[in-house]
């Protein structure tokens, strides 16, 4: 898969790769799936660095492996353009805006406004809002992936185990994966 120049004739400079992903990192809000259409627009339609079918392959790996979606796609596109160095500058570009912006907020803005009564009031409403979005993410993900009764039962059993045992989420994930190997074997859908 990572054969540089497989889909492009022109050698892009490392700086261009970094700046392009810096822009993606700096102007996309909401994380995750909100970022992918922006990357597609920038990389496939505007810069034509990879075509749509290569981009689809990239998305398959992006979603099937660990890590942030934006970061995973950026690294793969960087590798395709300029090998390992391309992957590294793409990662640096997409990560840098987050680190810079959040450092400014954490070091300066947040301590300055934190004790303000209106800021406290805003966070009083932001906390339940964030919890609602997390609950929504669970419901949406459940609707999208738990098709058959197998998935629902597995999910419910793991929920009970996680509540009772209080074990680390990593163990619950691994247990789920191993159960999936047995449980979902031979099923057609990726339930």
């Amino acid at each position, binding site marked *: *898969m990572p054969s540089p120049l497989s889909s492009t004739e022109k050698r892009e400079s490392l700086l261009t790769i970094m700046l392009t992903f810096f822009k993606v*990192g700096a102007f996309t*809000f909401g*994380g*995750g*799936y*909100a*970022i992918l259409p922006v990357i597609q627009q920038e990389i496939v339609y505007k810069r034509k660095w990879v075509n749509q079918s290569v981009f689809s392959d990239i998305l398959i*790996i992006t979603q*099937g*492996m*660990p*890590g*942030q*979606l*934006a*970061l*995973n796609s950026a*690294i*793969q596109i960087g*590798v395709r353009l300029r090998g*390992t160095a391309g*992957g*590294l500058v793409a990662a640096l570009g*997409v*990560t840098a805006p*987050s*680190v810079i*912006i959040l450092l400014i*907020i*954490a070091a300066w803005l947040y301590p300055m406004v934190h004790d303000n009564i*209106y800021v406290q*009031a*805003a966070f*009083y*409403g*932001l*906390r*339940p*809002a*964030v*919890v609602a*979005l*997390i609950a*929504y*993410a*669970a419901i949406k993900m459940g609707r999208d992936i738990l098709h058959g009764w197998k*998935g629902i039962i597995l*999910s*419910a059993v*793991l929920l009970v185990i996680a*509540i009772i045992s209080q074990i*680390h*989420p*990593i163990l*619950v*994930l691994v247990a*789920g994966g191993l159960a999936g*190997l047995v449980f*979902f074997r031979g099923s057609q859908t990726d339930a």
Partner: protein
Amino acid sequence: MLNILLSLYWSFLKVGLFTIGGGYAMIPLMEAEVIRVHSWLSASEFLDIIAVAEMTPGPVSINAATFIGYRLAGVTGSLVASLGVITPSLVLLLLLARILFKLIQNPGAKTFLSGLRSALVALILLASYTLGQSAVIDLSTAFIFGLILIASLLRPVSPLYYIGLGALLGLILFPY
């Protein structure tokens, strides 16, 4: 100091390594590491940081890692935590991409991932309940929670709008 930097790096590396599918998949892991295992933050401090991470551009988990790292160990802490969260992606995609591409298309890997995603649904649901106990504390916050949950189920627009709505309702309903 070195100890806290090492634990920060290791904790966020685990978060990066087991965040599969992006987005809120990292919430249960981060919550476990930051609140339960290390007691670095309270649940409401954690939620405040997630809210800020959601309002600012870029991947939410890298944003949150930077903020939490800064809180614990200043600028060095923020760099170490964000490096930790991106390390698994870098290693896997730069060094093991070929093997990974083959592995991901293996039917066994697909069933493993399906099982893992079923676990993830349970974990995210549980995290929302656990975190909810420090966020939904009275009638007003229960109203905000319910309204935004129902609204996002009916109209799944960008979460940024609902974050903004939450802040606005907080300003109106806060018991000053």
